[in-house]
């Protein structure tokens, strides 16, 4: 065989429709007779609804119906939370699709208008008059737990959504005997995901059949089907969810929202297909946010820089209601990752989930692991300052040594494989780290502030073993499925339960099939995102699609190979034991010209004229793959910044990412994931943040006010990799969708603080705006 298809950066097979404008996203769908919904949203963060008058709106041109909370009450069940973390007393407060008595955040739905066109629907919204009694609001999660804070839910005293503790070793002893302790308060500001495609849903109700179809901009159509069934009462087998082309998600399209339930309600009431698409400004309040932690952290160490303990109390804002996966993020995906790539014998995470009068918080790229990595990497830099050691040296003294098959960290996880030192060395060599430090010294003498940030990370992804999912309260399994189907012509369809939306699995899954079965990659078509066509799956998030879904694809291919081998033996009149497979051919050992191609086998299996005794026709295999463990990709990222003391401007001049995601199926796609991830994390460090005033108004409520990364503000990311296969994954792969975001926020943050260190600046709150930096320089300097 020449170059293997597994491991080659072939261009993507989904692109032709995307670069020609022929792809169909939800908002591109137009059904006969379709009408348009617009949702009236609360302008107040907290208020009692005294009365609503919809009569003028109902009489407006083109308006077909106006519904309020009273109309949906009892018809739509409350929106459930699907990740009820055990032993944490999660308060599952009612989340009505449309608020009836109380609104709890700016963006809460108050009414919906359906009209013949969208302009009419939006016009009519303005004619609805709502009489609100405005109540005090609380946005800061730590303050919300306080004694005098406004209460959001009667059944969640002190606004506490849950309290979760995880620990390993003996933390209190570690702190008692610590030679050095460093402390910090870290604010993980609330972030707005900003997938470029706003969310959208089209619902169609076929009343005579009792069938509901929803086209939905989602990352996990099967979960949407399940929850739609719970909320609407339509039986699961009568619901079809289609995720057509989806324009990015980054976690914000995991949640099953009230909005698509409202759209379904309208379609069922009116007997007409109904479309709703949010505006971007609506997206800022109605689509889930990420992060929002206040963390009080302490790190214990010896004088030589060996970390002996880590403890943190985290106040994690949940927003006004629990989003679908909300509680799992600051707990399971965060607290359990406090060891990172380091051997830390004693750890405790104490996490309070807190209701606040703001948009619900969900997964946002990295979901919990960026916060954990930031916490650790920030504390290690503080320790390095305290001990007057190079930050790289402190990391080196604590990294877990290389392991190939399992390493138990104190907090209870078993990492799969890692060679953290190698990733670090690769990054140091590539950046000529020592030279960079010298350069920093020289520049400082000339009044130029250069900073270097180094981050070693290890993250948990490829979610995950279903037994663990159950044990940690995730309301489902986390296995994946794939059907591989050969047709008589030798062409192949792969039907998968995962639901990629930009990650390129139409290509990488085809590469897996091509590699396993020797068919040309163009003979494979991957089908996803339609619950009527694809087998059950749990969706695309947590860097699980290639790891878990790809494994299911590979295992189905291997089943086909085995069936093909038996059929080939029959056709070649050879003993089964003598028939082997290589490069798309089955042949008799020792006589390679006695062979059948996979295409010959596909033809015979499909016509079934001459099958071995007892063998079923067809060449098709289904796999439900439940991974034995998560995967733990890792790496080292280094950022270099120049800070201008005159105006606080930060120039990110160099960014090096060394990542290890095990074997790479398509290095071009892997690199693309890293680029995008890194830039999102840079956004958190430097520019992004949801800012609220004390009344709970979102001040960064549009793309004008919320600063997203732009092309001219960024350098190229230099990507390098090491390869440490996952020992338990059938393909040896690990997830790569989130590592960039996980590593880049602390890398850039640490670089900026490093640039200011000689002035006595030890920390600043993100985002590191020029103003904050300038003030720090001029106050301290």
């Amino acid at each position, binding site marked *: 065989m020449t170059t293997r298809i597994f491991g080659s950066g072939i*261009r*993507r097979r*989904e*692109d*032709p429709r*995307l*670069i*020609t*404008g*022929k*792809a*169909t*996203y939800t*908002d*591109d769908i137009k059904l006969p007779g379709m009408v348009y919904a617009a949702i009236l949203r609360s302008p107040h963060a907290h208020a009692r609804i005294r009365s609503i008058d919809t009569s003028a709106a109902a009489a407006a041109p083109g308006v077909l119906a106006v519904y309020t909370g009273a109309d949906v009450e009892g018809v739509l069940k409350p929106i459930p939370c699907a990740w009820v973390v055990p032993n944490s007393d999660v308060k599952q407060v009612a989340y009505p699709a449309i608020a009836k008595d109380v609104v709890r955040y700016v963006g809460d739905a108050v009414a919906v208008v359906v009209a013949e066109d969208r*302009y009419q629907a939006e016009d009519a919204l303005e004619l609805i008059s709502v009489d609100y009694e405005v109540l005090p609001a609380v946005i800061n999660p730590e303050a919300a737990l306080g004694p005098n804070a406004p209460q959001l839910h009667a059944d969640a005293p002190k606004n506490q959504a849950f309290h979760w503790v995880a620990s390993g070793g003996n933390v209190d002893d570690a702190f008692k005997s610590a030679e050095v302790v460093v402390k910090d308060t870290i604010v993980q500001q609330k972030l707005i995901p*900003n*997938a*470029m*495609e*706003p969310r959208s849903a089209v619902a169609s109700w076929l009343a005579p059949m009792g069938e509901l179809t929803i086209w939905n901009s989602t990352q996990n159509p099967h979960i949407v089907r399940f929850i739609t069934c719970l909320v609407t009462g339509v039986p699961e087998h009568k619901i079809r969810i289609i995720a057509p*082309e*989806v*324009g*990015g998600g*980054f976690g914000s399209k995991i949640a099953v929202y009230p909005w698509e339930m409202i759209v379904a309600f309208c379609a069922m009431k009116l007997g007409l297909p109904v479309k709703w698409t949010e*505006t*971007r*400004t609506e997206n800022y309040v109605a689509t889930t946010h990420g992060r929002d932690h206040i963390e009080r952290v302490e790190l214990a160490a010896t004088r030589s820089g060996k970390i002996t303990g880590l403890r943190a109390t985290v106040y994690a804002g949940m927003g006004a209601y629990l989003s679908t996966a909300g509680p799992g993020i600051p707990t399971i995906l965060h607290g359990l990752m406090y060891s990172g790539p380091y051997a830390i014998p004693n750890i405790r995470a104490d996490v309070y989930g807190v209701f606040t009068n703001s948009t619900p918080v969900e997964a946002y790229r990295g979901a919990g692991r960026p916060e954990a990595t930031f916490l650790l990497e920030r504390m290690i830099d503080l320790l390095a300052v305290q001990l007057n050691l190079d930050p790289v040296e402190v990391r080196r003294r604590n990294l877990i040594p290389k392991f190939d098959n399992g390493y138990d960290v104190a907090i209870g996880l078993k990492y799969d494989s890692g060679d953290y030192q190698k990733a670090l060395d690769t990054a140091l060599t590539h950046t000529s780290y020592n030279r960079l430090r010298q350069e920093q010294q020289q520049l400082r003498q000339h009044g130029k502030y250069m900073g270097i940030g180094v981050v070693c990370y290890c993250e948990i992804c490829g979610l995950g073993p279903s037994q663990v999912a159950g044990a940690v309260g995730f309301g489902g399994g986390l296995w994946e499925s794939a059907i591989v189907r050969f047709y008589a012509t030798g062409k192949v369809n792969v039907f998968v339960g995962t639901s990629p*939306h*930009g*990650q*390129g699995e139409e290509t990488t899954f085809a590469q897996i099939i091509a590699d396993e079965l020797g068919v040309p990659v163009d003979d494979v078509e991957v089908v996803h995102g339609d619950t009527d066509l694809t087998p059950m799956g749990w969706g695309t998030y947590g860097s699980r699609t290639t790891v878990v879904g790809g494994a299911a694809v590979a295992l189905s291919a291997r089943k086909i190979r085995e069936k093909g081998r038996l059929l080939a033996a029959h056709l070649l009149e050879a003993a089964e034991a003598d028939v082997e497979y290589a490069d798309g051919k089955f042949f008799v050992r020792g006589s390679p010209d006695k062979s059948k191609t996979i295409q010959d086998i596909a033809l015979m299996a499909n016509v079934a004229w001459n099958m071995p005794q007892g063998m079923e026709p067809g060449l098709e295999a289904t796999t439900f793959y439940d991974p034995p463990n998560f995967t733990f990709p890792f790496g080292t990222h280094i950022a270099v910044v120049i800070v201008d003391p005159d105006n606080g401007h930060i120039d990110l001049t160099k960014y090096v990412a060394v990542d290890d995601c095990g074997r790479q199926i398509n290095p*071009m*796609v892997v*690199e*693309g994931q890293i*680029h*995008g*991830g*890194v*830039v*999102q994390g840079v956004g958190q460090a430097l520019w992004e943040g949801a800012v609220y005033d004390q009344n709970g108004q979102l001040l960064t409520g*549009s*793309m*004008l006010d919320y600063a*997203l*990364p*732009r*092309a*001219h503000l*960024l350098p*190229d*990311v230099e990507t390098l990799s090491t390869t440490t296969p996952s020992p338990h994954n059938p393909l040896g792969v690990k997830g790569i969708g989130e590592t*960039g975001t996980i590593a880049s926020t602390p890398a850039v943050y640490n670089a900026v603080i490093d640039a200011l260190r000689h002035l006595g600046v030890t920390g600043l709150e993100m985002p590191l705006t020029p103003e904050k930096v300038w003030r720090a320089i001029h106050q301290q300097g």
Partner: protein
Amino acid sequence: MNIQVKVNGKSYQADVEPRMLLVHFLRDVAGLTGTKIGCDTSQCGSCVVLMDGVTVKSCTCLAVHANGSSITTIEGLAQDGKLHAVQEAFWNKHGLQCGYCTAGMILTVTELLQRNPKPTAEQVRQGLKGNICRCTGYQNIVRAALAAAEALGG
């Protein structure tokens, strides 16, 4: 109001509300949904089309303003089934992930290369200021633009 607009070489005549946005005209009247809407504050560039050869944000332009003009949308870029060099370069260089910003990016780059056939990476980055991509981190979009410049003989 009655307007006539040429889109990708084809003439469309329609009676539109004066407030109708050009992007809605293209998507809903002409049925060309390749042009996307990513914001409502003229920030993202998902909606970029060429009006008489010049990039405009079609969300920030009324359909009536387009009366008598000639518009090129992403659907009109490939000729006789052959991809435009910029489209080809986006494909080759992995210049897109979810594809939502792509129409705007490709048209922006197309016009950029007409004005500056041999841009530096920095000039490309400056030229993309008005377009947001949340997926790619821009790096492969820049690569694609430079590759397209080369392919076009710039």
